[in-house]
């Protein structure tokens, strides 16, 4: 277990994180675009993409909520060792990690305030599949329309109506990532 905790981090953190952030930023800037994240792999059930996101974005300043299957001692130790992020309940989280079902109830996460809409949670949703098909997306970052497998169309519609408040999501599967910011219209 000790060995597993120490493994799976970035080989060369500054460069690996820079390359990973570019992919994450492109995903968030262009909802529906599927990017690749490599360079880190935490213990199961963490996907490589979610592992890379955590190492790129999280540290002692970012409370994380681990949902159900992801809330294991292995995962906790790995995140603590590599990021130092504290673990908290859903309503305190800056980042939340798990399958869509496990992340419920989804209205518990911070959606920001009228004056500080940036104080909203980012959900990292581990998906059973991720492809450019399914729901139809439009909004900032999308020239006309994009297609993407999303976890919950109805939730995203409610979330978009809260704009400029609302949660933002990264969708992960294997080493792939896409994003669904609150600005995206989903149908």
């Amino acid at each position, binding site marked *: 277990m000790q060995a597993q905790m120490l493994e799976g981090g970035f080989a060369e953190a500054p460069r690996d994180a820079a390359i990973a952030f570019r992919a994450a930023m492109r995903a968030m800037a*262009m909802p529906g675009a599927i990017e690749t994240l490599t360079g880190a792999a935490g213990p199961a059930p963490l996907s490589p993409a979610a592992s890379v996101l955590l190492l*790129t*974005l999280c*540290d002692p300043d970012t409370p994380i909520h681990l949902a159900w299957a992801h809330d294991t001692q292995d995962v906790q130790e790995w995140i603590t060792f590599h990021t130092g992020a504290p673990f908290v309940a859903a309503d305190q989280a800056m980042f939340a990690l798990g399958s869509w079902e496990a992340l419920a109830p989804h209205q518990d996460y911070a959606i920001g305030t009228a*004056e500080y809409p940036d104080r*909203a949670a980012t959900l990292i949703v581990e998906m059973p599949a991720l492809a450019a098909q399914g729901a139809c997306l439009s909004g*900032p970052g999308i020239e006309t329309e994009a297609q993407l497998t999303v976890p919950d169309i109805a939730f995203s519609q409610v979330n978009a109506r809260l704009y400029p408040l609302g949660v*933002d999501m990264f969708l992960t599967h294997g080493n792939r990532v896409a994003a669904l910011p609150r600005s995206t219209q989903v149908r």
Partner: protein
Amino acid sequence: MTDYNFAYLDEQTKRMIRRAILKGLAVPGYQVPFASREMPMPYGWGTGGVQLSAAVMTPDDTFKVIDQGSDDTTNAVSIRRFFERTAGVAVTEETQEATVIQTRHRIPETPLEAGQILVYQVPIPEPLRFLEPSEVETRKMHSLEEYGLMHVKLYEDISQHGAIATAYAYPVMVRDRYVMDPSPIPKFDNPKLHSPAIQLFGAGREQRIYAVPPFTKVVSLDFEDYPFEASKAEGACALCGADNSYLDEVIMDDAGHRMFVCSDSDFCTTRRARGHVGTEGVPS
């Protein structure tokens, strides 16, 4: 071995800036607060743009810096060298070749493409600041979409000058929600804010980051009877003959002769290399 981190900033600072960028992209035009750091830059250029460039740069990037359209000013050269040295990136003066372009006061004439990142150095990020000095009040105004005063001010400009006098930092409405200061670009550049590129704005002293994702709706504020006009000086570039680029007036000699030349030096150079010649130009 080098004694500084990749792209100079430490990893924790970069993570903080990167999180702010992501929230900025999720809420286009909204100013995200961040904890600005000191940068080893000459005074007067500002550090918001440099901090953004440091947070987004990868080793594979090709970096370009323009200052008022020019790649050759002292500041443009020193920032280019800074990232050449601290991030080991390739540098260029060609807009098309660049993957990350840091700019002050211009958007390149050559249309940007998908995948490119344009980083703006911003002196005053708050478009409502000249109406309301209090940060608490402007934040409240944004939250309530209270932009009536801004429209009144613009309309006053028209009644006094017969046209909207604001020639730089002309305010825009982003995605029908936030009024945003596009930094002191000439209003000629405003239509280019609707772009396939990712646009990031950084104000170091005021500690704000904001963003415009590709293809985001950006509308320059105007009125039915006074529609927005992306105006520039009449005439063509004296060196390359372009009549569709933003022109700077330069004094040629002690007798005070003046001519208009492209503000975008790469655009002008590229045109001349292709054989375009203006009235004062010499064939290359």
